[in-house]
């Protein structure tokens, strides 16, 4: 089918407008980070780098950043281990109930986040587990497993089985074959799955608000509590810019090394 030139032009203009719609808020945000005025009105009143210095000097922001990095690192490692084990089991074996189990792994991201959040919180409370960084890690690992799992499964599906068979024929046991053949084959999938899980954890707020205790603030929670106040600190703009960069850069790297699951946005 050949579209008329008018239709083609209209579609091009519409797509361009949608791209502006998608990126304009992010551009505005970056502009505000350099805005001299502490009041958030438009247009900005001048250029300054002061807020970056102020953000770097704030102990509350530094603590929140450290918490976010700790949580994201531990939950990524947990998710990678659990996701890889699950992927090996699901991809290399066939067994009864396999479909139900693969459904189970996607359930934490299929049900609304608020349900996951309140579920975890109500059981932490029931068992008398104090909320803190450890409960955030438990929550994040649960929904990050599926990201790692999806990446590794996609890779295992494409890896040829013949090198593994050859390795077994040459007398290597299954551990040796895994270490020398399968693991190197999965390496970039593990790396990109890990980066995606890290980005997902670093940015999460819906479930985190339920799992975080009063003392345990991640960076997004710090931003959220700032936003709920009537007067916001201008450093929020700087932290917001930092959050965008820390969540986008790992994904960009993951895409460069060939991650399969970027299009899903992880949610």
């Amino acid at each position, binding site marked *: 089918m050949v579209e008329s030139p008018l239709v083609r032009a209209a*579609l091009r203009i519409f797509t361009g407008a949608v791209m502006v719609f998608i990126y304009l808020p992010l551009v505005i945000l970056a502009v505000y980070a350099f805005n001299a005025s502490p009041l958030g009105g438009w247009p900005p009143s001048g250029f300054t780098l002061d807020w970056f210095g102020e953000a770097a000097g704030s102990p509350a922001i530094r603590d929140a950043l450290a918490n976010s990095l700790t949580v994201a690192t531990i939950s990524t490692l947990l998710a990678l281990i659990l996701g890889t084990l699950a992927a090996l089991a699901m991809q290399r074996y066939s067994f009864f109930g396999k479909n139900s189990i693969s459904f189970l792994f996607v359930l934490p991201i299929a049900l609304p986040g*608020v349900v996951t959040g309140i579920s975890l919180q*109500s059981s932490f409370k029931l068992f008398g587990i104090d909320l803190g960084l450890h409960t955030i890690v438990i929550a994040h690992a649960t929904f990050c497993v599926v990201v790692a799992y999806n990446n590794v499964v996609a890779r295992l599906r494409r890896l040829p089985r013949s090198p593994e068979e050859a390795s077994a024929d040459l007398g290597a046991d299954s*551990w040796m074959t895994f270490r020398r053949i399968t693991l190197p084959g999965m390496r970039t999938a593990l790396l990109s799955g890990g980066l995606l899980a890290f980005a997902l954890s670093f940015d999460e707020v819906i479930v985190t608000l339920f799992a975080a205790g009063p003392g345990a603030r991640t960076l997004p929670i710090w931003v959220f509590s700032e936003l709920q106040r009537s007067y916001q600190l201008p450093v929020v703009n700087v932290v917001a810019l930092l959050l965008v960069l820390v969540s986008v850069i790992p994904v960009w790297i993951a895409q460069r090394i060939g991650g399969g699951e970027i299009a899903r946005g992880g949610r």
Partner: protein
Amino acid sequence: MIRRITGWFNRHPRATLGALLAGPLGWISVVYLGSLLILLMHAFWSKDSFTGKVEPFNWTLDAFVQIFSNPVYFTIAARTIGIALLVTISAAAIALPVAYYMARIASPRKRALLLVAVTMPLWASYLVKIYAWRTILQTNGLLGWAISPFGLEGPGLTEIANSWLVLTYLWLPYMILPVYAGLERIPNSLLEASADLGGRGWITFRRVIFPQLIPALAAGSIFTFSLSIGDYIVPDLVSDAKFIGNVIYDNSALGSFPVAAAFSFVPIVVMIGYLLFARRLGAFESL
């Protein structure tokens, strides 16, 4: 030692499978399914009217009575589902032309660029995107500034339409991507056949392309609908009309788990219903 262990696993493939699955399956079952079960039980547990503490295994329907006797809960549920449907429809309406341009008109280079451009914002901090819209929508923000020459004022941060706009913004890429993939799958020969048979542009779109896109639209709508129905940050930050998620969050903050749990049934039941509906439209083959 390792050799002895791996040798044993070599001879017992079922045991290997069990060892592989034990960790991940145990985690998801205990942490996730276990919590879900505990949440559902909370809905039927009573609360001490004096201390406000939850009394586990003290069965009652009080939480459901409280929800059904107060029309506010019904209003909030209807509002949330209504906005989630509106978000889904508007995301589909925006996604169709964009995906069509990407799949059928843009050059391969431009297509690749657009794909990345649509995908990247999905990862650019959810909370920050909402914050960016706050700065645009507030009375003295960019929107108010842009329309002030016409004697209009910025919308401020109380309008419910803000939630509609921001949720559509957030979940739009989830609709564009499957619709684009769906358009890619339609063979050119089909469109040529339609043209040969005299179907002009609009007729071909309505009678040939659109019916084939229904599974893709349904797949995208699972994301836009589910993510909207469970959101409580957007309604909290850009408007003052509460969603289901706000009621759940506020009640949990007050320690009122039975009511929070009972109200959680609404998004769970609605989502299960929606997933079954989407499956009938063929959504799962397009995910």
